Structures are given as structure tokens and as C-alpha cells.
């Protein structure tokens, strides 16, 4: 468990964060720019001496201003990946990777040299100079460098934000692999809902320096009263397992609590547990079942509630499909014309869905 109560006054607002997150898996701190995400992360790391309060991680007290206790950053068992890779320019890639590694007592090493190098695929870069690397390569080196300090907690501040879409696609799988292979708790700051969905099991929503809500990602994403529902890429996460794969049409059939869904996917073995992401904008609603449509997936569902959309033209609808929550983004006029209200029975047409991992 990571527990923190932190205050930090700024000209624009005051950070007043109360945080209780599990010391395992990935916890995303999500919020718009300027909501205090980075400030919170820096305070957790002890990089911001202006932040007052308490921080305790796995029973170790890192900061308690009431008792005048403050453990300096270098004595906290954490590593930090900054938004910019911030590699040491005077050192080679190897020198950067060794920096934290050699400062970690052998008995405290939880990440092996080769393990980190393979996870982030930085082996071919070892002897290169830092300024000869691309942006994506630099960030991979920075992440490997952080891992090699064998932290018990990894703090990541939008590590993909400075990269273009192609570079992100190159690093995201590395991060997923990292979380699968290392039992290392991660606090991951992001304002990209796709990243959060892909990586985090736990979600903390930050707004104007305060924690708005926190909880398991899938539950949080299905709520209409949170800003995540107002995101362009709002949507839900569904746990499912593979039933079959249609090699002719390149489709995987997946079973979840509310029914079955088919989506485009390469060969995948039966029984595989997967998470499906269904974006609200890819779900449309109908009052009756249509067979003459190109949309493959139709799920029977009941309207749970309606909420405002990203703009006045839109409405968000939360559905219950046999116990599974779905979000649909439709126009406000459609909502009126269909006479949607809590309890309405509808067919949810899912135009597309994607596997998260």
C-alpha cells in the first residue's frame, strides 16, 4: 500500500491529495494538464521539498512533517522516469544504465542486468552515445536505467508524451511486458485515456489538485459522473475469454458476462483471457434488432443512466449488458427520438472493439 496525504501551494491552485493505492500492479494518475499530476508524483518521490504531509510506502515512512521526518529521494526505494528521457549526456548508454545499477547493493538487486536490457530491447544500443539515439530509444534507455536501480516502486511521468504515435506503439508493448514480468508496483501519470486503459489496473482521477475518485480501472471507466466519460476516447474495459477463431474472416469470438462479441484479430488460442476495450463512440443503440446491417456485434442491454456528452450535441448512455457495463455515445437528438430513459431495453451495436493485450 502506498498512502499519501500531501499539500502543496501553487499560484494557480493548491494540491491537496489523499491517496491510497495498492502497492502492486499499475496505478494510473489521470487528469487534464495542470491538474497537479506531475506535482503529486514529484512529491511522492521527495523531489519537492515544498510539499507537506505524509507519505508511507509498504510500512516505511518516507515523509511525515508532523514528526519532522523526511527520507531524501536517494534513500527511497523508488525510481522515476521523467517525461523527457533526461539521460546523462556525458555517459554512453551503458554508462547511463550502470549509474543506478552499481549504486544498488547486490543483495537489493531485484532486476537483473540482462533482464532489463531484454525487456526494453536496448542491447544493440549499449555502446552508443546518448545523442545518437532517437527519441523512442532514449526513453527506452531511461526506463531500463530506472529498472536497473531495482526500485520497489516505479514512478512514471507521462513517459510517452514526448513521443510521436509510432514511437509510442514501439514502447507501449515494452511497458506491458515490463508489468507482466516484474512484480513492480508502478504509478503512471498520464492524460491519455488509451494508455491508462492499456496499462492500469487502478485509476486515480485528479482534478485541480484534488483526488476526484479512485478505484479499479474498469469500474471507473464505466462511470458517467467522472471526467473520463467526457473524453473523446471514453469507453469501457471488458474481461473476456476466447471462444473460437475464424481463420477465414480473421475474426476472434470472445465470451464475456453479457454475451459474445467478435472482433478482428489474428490467430489466438481458445480459452485465452483477454481484456477488450469498447469505445463509447463505437457503440450505437437501436430499439429493435437489425439483421440487415454490417455491424457484427449486437448485444441486448438495459439503459442504466444517461449523462452529458463531450459537447451539447452528444449524450452518454451507460448500459448494462447482462452484468457487463457498456458506454454508448449517441447524439442528444437520438436519445430524445428513441425515448431513452433508465430501464429502456435496447440493442447495443458495437461497431468495433479491440483487445488491450
Amino acid at each position: 500500500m502506498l498512502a499519501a496525504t500531501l499539500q502543496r501551494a501553487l499560484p494557480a491552485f493548491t494540491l491537496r491529495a489523499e491517496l491510497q493505492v495498492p502497492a502492486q500492479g499499475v496505478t494510473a494518475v489521470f487528469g487534464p494538464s495542470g491538474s497537479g499530476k506531475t506535482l503529486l508524483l514529484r512529491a511522492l518521490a521527495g523531489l519537492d521539498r515544498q510539499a507537506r504531509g505524509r507519505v508511507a510506502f509498504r510500512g516505511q515512512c518516507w515523509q511525515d512533517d508532523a514528526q519532522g521526518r523526511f527520507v531524501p529521494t536517494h534513500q527511497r526505494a523508488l525510481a522515476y522516469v521523467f517525461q523527457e528521457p533526461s539521460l546523462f549526456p556525458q555517459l554512453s548508454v551503458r554508462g547511463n544504465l550502470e549509474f543506478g545499477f552499481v549504486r544498488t547493493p547486490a543483495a537489493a538487486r531485484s532486476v537483473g542486468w540482462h533482464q532489463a536490457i531484454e525487456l526494453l530491447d536496448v542491447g544493440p544500443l549499449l555502446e552508443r552515445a546518448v545523442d545518437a539515439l532517437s527519441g523512442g530509444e532514449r526513453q527506452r534507455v531511461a526506463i531500463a536505467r530506472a529498472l536497473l536501480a531495482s526500485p520497489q516502486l516505479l514512478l512514471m511521468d507521462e513517459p510517452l508524451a514526448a513521443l510521436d504515435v509510432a514511437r509510442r506503439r514501439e514502447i507501449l508493448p515494452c511497458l506491458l511486458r515490463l508489468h507482466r514480468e516484474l512484480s513492480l508496483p508502478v504509478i503512471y501519470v498520464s492524460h491519455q485515456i488509451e494508455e491508462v486503459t492499456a496499462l492500469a489496473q487502478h485509476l486515480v482521477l485528479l482534478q485541480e489538485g484534488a483526488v476526484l475518485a479512485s478505484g479499479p480501472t474498469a469500474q471507473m471507466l464505466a462511470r458517467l459522473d467522472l471526467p473520463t466519460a467526457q473524453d473523446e476516447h471514453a469507453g469501457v474495459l471488458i474481461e473476456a475469454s476466447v471462444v473460437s477463431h475464424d481463420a477465414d474472416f480473421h475474426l476472434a469470438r470472445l465470451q464475456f458476462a453479457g454475451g459474445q462479441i467478435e472482433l478482428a484479430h489474428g490467430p489466438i488460442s481458445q480459452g485465452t483471457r483477454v481484456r477488450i476495450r469498447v469505445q463509447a463512440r463505437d457503440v450505437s443503440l437501436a430499439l429493435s434488432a437489425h439483421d440487415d446491417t454490417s455491424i457484427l456485434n449486437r448485444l441486448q442491454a438495459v439503459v442504466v443512466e444517461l449523462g452529458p456528452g463531450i459537447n451539447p450535441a452528444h449524450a452518454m448512455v451507460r448500459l448494462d449488458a447482462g452484468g457487463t457495463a457498456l458506454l454508448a455515445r449517441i447524439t442528444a437528438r437520438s436519445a430524445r427520438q428513441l425515448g431513452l430513459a433508465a430501464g429502456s431495453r435496447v440493442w447495443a451495436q458495437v461497431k468495433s472493439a479491440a483487445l488491450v493485450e
Partner: protein
Amino acid sequence: MPATTTLYLTPDDWSAIRLSLALAGIVTLVLLVAGTPLAWWLARGRSRWRLAVAAVVTLPVVLPPTVLGFYLLLALGPDGPLGRLTQALGMGLLPFHFSGLVVASVLYSMPFVVQPIRNAFVAMGERPLEVAACLRAAPLDAFFRVALPLARPAIVAAAALGFAHTLGEFGVVLMIGGNIPGSTRVLSMQIYDHVEALEYAQAHWLAGGLLASSFLVLLALYRLERRAGVPGAGA
């Protein structure tokens, strides 16, 4: 031909050159050892005295050397506070000795060494040190293994500037050291004496040599700077 004209330089000239080189070397060394922590403190200290100290360190840039030399002479003299201190410590009085020149030159050349190093520390920002702290490096460790290597181009430049500047100093040395052959008569003083005595040829050898060597030092400095890029720039 007599030996003096084939050598071009008199033994007194050589003695002045040796003295100047020794002075510049010692002063540069002192300034690197003492000036680097001072530059660090000026760059990131949180004391309210920081700006006042920065201004004091920079004073020699704007003050006539005679002003600095005058007050140093008083302070280090038999009735000055520093003079009493050095006497109490059994060091005697520093003015009109080589050690007095060292003290005066350290103060006089300080801004030329401290400023570039301070600027490099400011330019590198907090980030490299934060990264080091997040990789288990204690503050002193981070200073030696991260900050100093990042500031290395600036430190080399500062050393060269300090050396060249001390080599060429005149006013402060004259005030505090007098003009004692073999003890405080440095290169610039020797040139002055040659000119006073209308020994222009001798003056040319020394002045020209100083001019050429100063030019070479600065040229080497700029080449170094260009090769290193902007000092302290992170990747």
C-alpha cells in the same frame, strides 16, 4: 655577440616570467578548488546572502584594480583585521610577499573563474541531479559524478580564463606587492620597468610574448567551447 642579446631575455626577465607562471598556476588551482563549491552555492544555494555574495565576487570586474589593491593593502597590513589575523597565526604580514600576491590575485581573478562555472551549474538545471537522486546517488555523489562532468567544459574554460587573467594583472600586484625582483616583480611589472627605462626591445619580447600566449589560450578556449557545444546542455 654578447649573451644578453642572443638570449633576448635577461635573467630578470626570466625570473619575472617564472614568477608570473607560478602565481597564475597557484591562483588558478586555488580558484578551482575554492571557486567551484562557491559557484555551486551561488547557483543553487537558498541563502538570502546569495545575491550579495554574487555581487561581491563580481566587483573586481568593474572596480579599478588599484581600489581593490588599496583596500587589500590596508586589510592585510599591520593594523588591518586580516593582517592581525595572519600575524596571530604566525604567518607574518602578507603584503610585499609572494603569498600576498596570491591572496590578492585570487580575489581579483575570482569572477573570471566563478562566473562561467556558476553559469554552467545554472544551465544544467535541477533535472540531472534529480535523475541522479532517483538512481540512488547521494547529493555529494551526484555533485562529483553528474554535475562536475556536465560542467567540465565550463570548468576548463574558467581555469584558462583565470590563468590568463592572473598572468596579465598589474594594478593589484603593484599595490599589494610592490615591485621586488624575484619575489613580487611579475611579468607585467617587468614590462613596465623596461618601458620606463626606454628598453623598448626588451619590452617587446615580453609584451609580445604575453600577447601571443594570451591569444593562443583564448583561441584554444573557443575551439574547445565549439567542440563541446553549449556547456551543460542535456540530452
